[in-house]
């Protein structure tokens, strides 16, 4: 049928006739098909993700002269960034917060995911939804909720006072790094849970049975079979919690008080805003972006090394890749 034109009538078989349309021609051509399918998403990503990052990168090499942005190229921003202890310290402090958030989230998410995957029989989907539904509530609302709970006239102080445990409201609850961590743990635990749950769910029941059949107790079965097979999910979940909470700036603003100045994302916000130092802000963002991408790359490598080609891990791999694409936006 090569060389046939649109609308051309082609003889087929016993006197039957078929009219070729342009759509048939697109379908028949593999390259054309790929192009048509990829055009929209590729232009979307280019316009809204790739270009902004290139602008950001370019700005980090621009010079600020008398408070005015010039297009002179310089390494001064990076020199200043690494020359003073302020920026590295802030990045490390944020990483410390993120690490603690990650560890606590894991400790909460893993047992819950385990229970959901293996122990709960009735209302399993309902319970899983109960974990996921908070994600439908706006992030801001959830962060504000902690303000209401922890505030001087807040729910917690009110409760403690009515119980007679305290006379004066506790002021250290709100506006500290602890409040920030609490909120971040609350917000990112579901993100940690999802990949772990997906991986646990995918572990064939027969593997646990085979382990028990081979004289492993329940604990040994967990230790030697379930835990190793769930590590890809643990890595994916930890990456979410770490990267997302490291890049977070809303919780620190709302709940961090003076401590919020110690978070790198808030530093970036003020560099772009109050300080009107876009080049330096861009440089910090680029450093953060590189750090984050390195982390994601490492996590991906680790996960791949632990993905044994069976069903386990495939769930987390898919979910992680899906969400990983959204992550850098949250950081930069």
């Amino acid at each position, binding site marked *: 049928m090569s060389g046939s034109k649109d609308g051309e009538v082609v003889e087929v078989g016993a006197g039957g006739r078929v009219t070729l349309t342009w759509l048939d021609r697109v379908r028949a051509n593999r390259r054309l098909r790929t192009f048509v399918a990829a055009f929209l998403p590729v232009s979307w990503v280019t316009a809204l993700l790739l270009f902004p990052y290139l602008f950001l990168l370019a700005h980090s090499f621009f010079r600020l002269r008398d408070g005015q942005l010039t297009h002179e190229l310089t390494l001064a921003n990076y020199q200043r960034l690494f020359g003073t202890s302020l920026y590295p310290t802030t990045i490390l402090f944020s990483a410390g917060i993120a690490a603690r958030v990650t560890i606590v989230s894991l400790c909460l998410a893993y047992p819950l995911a385990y229970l959901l995957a293996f122990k709960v029989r009735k209302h399993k989907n309902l319970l899983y939804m109960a974990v996921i539904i908070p994600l439908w509530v706006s992030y801001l609302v959830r962060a504000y909720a902690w303000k209401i709970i922890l505030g001087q006239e807040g729910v917690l102080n009110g409760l403690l006072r009515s119980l007679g445990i305290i006379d004066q409201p506790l002021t250290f609850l709100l506006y500290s790094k602890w409040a920030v961590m609490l909120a971040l743990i609350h917000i990112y635990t579901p993100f940690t849970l999802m990949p772990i749950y997906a991986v646990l769910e995918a572990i*064939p029941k*027969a*593997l646990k*049975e*085979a*382990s*028990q*059949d*081979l*004289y*492993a*107790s329940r604990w*040994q079965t967990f230790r*030697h*079979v379930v835990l*190793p*097979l769930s590590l890809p999910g643990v890595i994916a979940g930890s990456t979410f919690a770490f990267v997302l909470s490291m890049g977070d700036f809303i919780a620190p603003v709302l709940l961090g008080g003076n401590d919020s100045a110690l978070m790198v994302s808030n530093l970036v916000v003020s560099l772009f805003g109050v300080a009107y130092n876009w080049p330096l802000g861009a440089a910090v963002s680029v450093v953060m972006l590189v750090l984050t991408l390195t982390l994601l790359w490492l996590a991906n490598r680790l996960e791949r090394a*632990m993905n*044994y*080609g*069976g069903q*386990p891990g495939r769930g987390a791999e898919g979910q992680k890749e899906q969400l990983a694409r959204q992550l850098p936006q949250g950081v930069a």
Partner: protein
Amino acid sequence: MTTSLLDLRHVSKRFGEFVAVDDLSMAVAPGEFLTFLGASGSGKTTTLRMIAGFELPTSGEILMEGAPITQLPPFKRDINTVFQHYALFPHMSVRENVGYGLRMRKVPAAERARRVTEALDMVQMGHLEARAPRQLSGGQQQRVALARALINRPRVLLLDEPLGALDLKLRKEMQLELKHLNRQLGLTFIYVTHDQEEALTMSDRIALMRNGRIEQLSAPQEMYDRPVTRYVADFIGESNLLRATVRGVEGGEVVLGIGPATVRAVSARPWAAGAEAWLAVRPEYLRPAAPGESGNRLDGTARESVFTGSITRQYVTMPDGSSVVFHLPAGTTPPAAGSSLTLTWPVERGICVGE
């Protein structure tokens, strides 16, 4: 039954309303190759899982050498399982998989290494010990699963349709190999399959299951030659089944009326005159009767014949409309379609069975 290794006593398993295993009692002798054969949902896998300890019976008791093991968790039973889809640990090498049971039992490393090598050699997988399970073919995974179970020298080896995923040639090979291992090691094998040919090939005894009960428990040859019910006659091999009425019992033979004709058959159970029954005859025992030949005779009309190589299958319609098939020996000219035909068969090859 003091000589039995494993005893199932009135074992039942219910899942909600569904009765998977219904008051099952049987004994397994040491060294025996016993097969649970049945269609899906007949309760064969559930029975195996109760013996392994993965399911708790709703009622009844399981004993091993006289001691109750009903409540014992799987990891405390001297029983190992070869799973349907092998269930090899994907994050461990072949060697680690095979050594897992010994490791969990805290067998010293040196002895463990020696026994793993031995077990891998036994299934001819020594050269692939460093591979991951996903790098193995189905047949190779099967061997590893077998080695992983056998290395522990269990009292009973359970096999849950282990050959289901293999191609025909490999399956035949593995059937012989399993039978060989059973003899060589003197281990008790309990095998689950829905493949009657597999069951006939390997088993010392077959327990044919239906609706959670054992329909017949006997050696393969006996099950083939002397089915006790219509279901067994139909499930094992090929049977011609004809509706019959019991006319009476004479000298150990059952006299059956099939339409106007009267034939004689044998049966494993007592019959009373007037009972409804089935006559079961294998296709290989039916043949056209010579004129004037005495014995069992049934008239029919020849229909098409199908050449299958070593034999020719000849179809015959009986007066009541039912269809019968028999094997024409090679080199015989089939009767013309539509021609009348009288069939005969040895009395001891006609089995009178109930539903």
